């Protein structure tokens, strides 16, 4: 390949790389034109098929809500409980693959060419990684998940851990320590190495094939080593369309469900009534801010919002840390890390386990969920990661976010468990997670147990809302790029279209019903994408091997 490049006279990106020679010209399948005052430049047929299939599924969910609900409500759990071993094994492979890349000499390859320099500072980069991929989940599950595992009376304890409460809900002091340890380990397992390895694989594949190999920034490019020139035809169209479809529905359904959660939080904290109208207003507000953000672009909008959000999240973290007793919680972080290290192998064992409720209901669900989000988050990470070496990239996308997530879970979960232990009978966390299951209130219930609850709850609600904005704007950029055949400079009205479309889909599903069933459908796409990701590992390996180091 290298020789051909020299013959063709294509200069190296920045320093040596190994460009792939292909007959495909970026944008050759695009249609350009104008609709009224708006210019467009879209990939044919990915743009139209993605848009129309989204409309078709929304229509299906609205016209036959019961059937759609029954079908996807059956499909998702059926997949995660039948293929739990597959999800668990695949996620383990991704983690091992990434860790191996750090130590192999292949890790020296630099994304964007041997002499490329990083586009973003570490701070801006981290802020965008978190805000796009996980921020909203940390807000929702940070309290819920550890508190749930700690107190669950439903028999889905991780690894069948011991319960700290007896049948009548009285504390069994002797079991608290062990149950707390397992709750933190089991939560960290879902938020540390495994999910970030999933994102890292997709991001690395896209960054490598785009910056170093000269292929368009689109999901299909990662399949060039496997499919060859066929990726520019229907194979590629299908891959890209499914990615757009999963991203758009993933964002729209979490936006709709998120509006319900934010509204529940607003009701809990301020007494603002929980109504469809209020939720629609929230979605419109979030979409409007996301629109401003995409209009201001990657640096002026997405990055700025991500940094503001990370700043706020760090403030909240520090507050909870000190309010709940820094010494106690930092010890908890140490214990959490240790527990994670001790339990990660038994927890990730795919076979011969008895804890179906945890393994199938939580772990396999999470893995399918992360994987269905990986085209979006991976592509966004790729977009902002040029100039890093593979080793640097994996350390920063895998190791550091994992530590941050374990810390977050130890602080928020630790504070929640402390409250459950100290005030078992009148703990708000206990009431909202175990006694009656209202997951969307868990964060606010925990904050209520600490001082200054009215201020911190407000910060909590702002964070929840802005994290939705930061997922929504980066998602719109990703969808826009894929549907423009990998062009990042398609006319701006196109990203406005996708951002608005996402808000409209969320509103349609919220008002008409169907959020949960379509979210189940999105998560179901995790199964085929798992196979896709496994193939990507092989493609990355092939791609890296041919790079000069």
């Amino acid at each position, binding site marked *: 390949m290298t020789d051909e490049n020299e013959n063709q006279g294509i*200069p190296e*990106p920045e320093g040596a790389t190994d460009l792939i020679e292909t007959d495909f010209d970026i944008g050759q399948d695009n249609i350009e034109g104008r609709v009224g*005052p708006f210019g467009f430049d879209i990939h044919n047929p990915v743009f139209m098929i993605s848009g129309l299939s989204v409309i078709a599924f929304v229509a299906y969910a609205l016209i036959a809500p019961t059937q759609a609900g029954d079908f996807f409500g059956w499909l998702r759990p059926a997949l995660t409980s039948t293929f739990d071993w597959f999800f668990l094994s695949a996620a383990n492979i991704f983690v091992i693959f990434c860790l191996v890349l750090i130590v192999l000499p292949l890790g020296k390859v630099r994304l964007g060419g041997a002499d490329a320099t990083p586009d973003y500072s570490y701070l801006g980069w981290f802020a965008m990684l978190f805000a796009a991929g996980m921020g909203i989940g940390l807000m929702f599950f940070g309290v819920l998940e550890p508190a749930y595992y700690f107190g669950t009376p439903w028999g889905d304890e991780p690894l069948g851990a011991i319960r700290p409460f007896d049948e009548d809900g009285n504390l069994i002091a002797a079991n608290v320590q062990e149950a707390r340890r397992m709750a933190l380990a089991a939560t960290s397992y879902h938020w540390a190495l495994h999910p970030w390895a999933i994102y890292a694989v997709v991001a690395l594949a896209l960054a490598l094939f785009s910056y170093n190999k*000269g292929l368009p920034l689109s999901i299909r490019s990662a399949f060039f080593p496997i499919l060859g020139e066929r990726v520019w035809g229907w194979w590629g169209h299908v891959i890209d369309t499914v990615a757009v479809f999963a991203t758009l529905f993933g964002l729209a359904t979490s936006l709709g469900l998120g509006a319900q959660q934010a509204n529940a939080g607003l009701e809990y904290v301020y007494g603002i009534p929980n109504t469809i109208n209020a939720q629609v207003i929230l979605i419109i507000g979030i979409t409007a801010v996301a629109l401003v953000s995409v209009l201001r672009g990657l640096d002026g909008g997405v990055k700025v919002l991500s940094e503001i959000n990370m700043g706020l999240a760090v403030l909240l973290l520090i507050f909870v840390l000190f309010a709940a007793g820094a010494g106690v919680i930092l010890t908890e972080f140490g214990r959490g890390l240790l527990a994670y290290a001790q339990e990660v192998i038994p927890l990730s064992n795919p076979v011969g386990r008895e804890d179906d409720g945890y393994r199938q209901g939580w772990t396999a669900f999470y893995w399918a969920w992360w994987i269905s989000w990986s085209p979006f988050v991976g592509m966004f990470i790729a977009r902002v990661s040029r100039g890093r070496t593979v080793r640097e990239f994996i350390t920063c996308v895998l190791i550091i976010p994992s530590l941050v997530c374990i810390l977050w879970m130890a602080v928020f979960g630790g504070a929640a468990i402390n409250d459950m232990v100290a005030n078992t009978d009148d703990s708000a966390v206990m009431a909202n997670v175990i006694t009656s299951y209202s997951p969307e209130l868990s964060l606010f219930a925990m904050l209520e147990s600490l001082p200054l609850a009215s201020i911190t709850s407000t910060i909590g609600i702002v964070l929840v809302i802005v994290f939705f904005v930061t997922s929504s704007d980066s998602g719109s950029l990703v969808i826009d790029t894929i549907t423009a055949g990998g062009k990042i*400079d398609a006319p701006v009205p196109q990203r406005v279209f996708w951002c608005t479309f996402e808000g409209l889909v969320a509103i349609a599903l919220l008002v008409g019903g169907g959020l949960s069933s379509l979210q189940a459908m999105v998560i179901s796409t995790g199964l085929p994408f798992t196979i896709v990701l496994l193939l990507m590992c092989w493609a990355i390996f092939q791609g890296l091997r041919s790079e000069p180091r």
Partner: protein
Amino acid sequence: MFKRIMIPVDLAHEGNLERALQVACDLSSHYGAELVYVGVTGETPSSVAHTPAEFAAKLETFAKEETKARGGGSARAHTITAHDPAVEIDKLLEKAATDLGADLVVMGSHIPSRFDFSSHGGHVANHATCSVMLVRDQ
């Protein structure tokens, strides 16, 4: 009158530039002004080039060939890379005019419709401190 003329070019849509290029070359030879071709590219592969370096090389060639063919004066190329070219282009062109010390910007432009969403020429004409000449494509 003019010492340095900046001409922003979109290598993906060379066809629309026909008249602007001719005007810029005529002016440069008339006033003995230097021509600077300015191109903005993202860092991902695009329809024009696989890498920013390839883009710069193409712009260089484009500048040389067009100037020669149209009888312009001395010419050079200036490539700007951007994280998000679609939204940054207006500001980047405005800044380039200042940084390069251009005293005239000649830009291709389409006939505006009633609500024009993205008029790069309009932005530069509104904000640049130097003279700006917008040349309609027909």
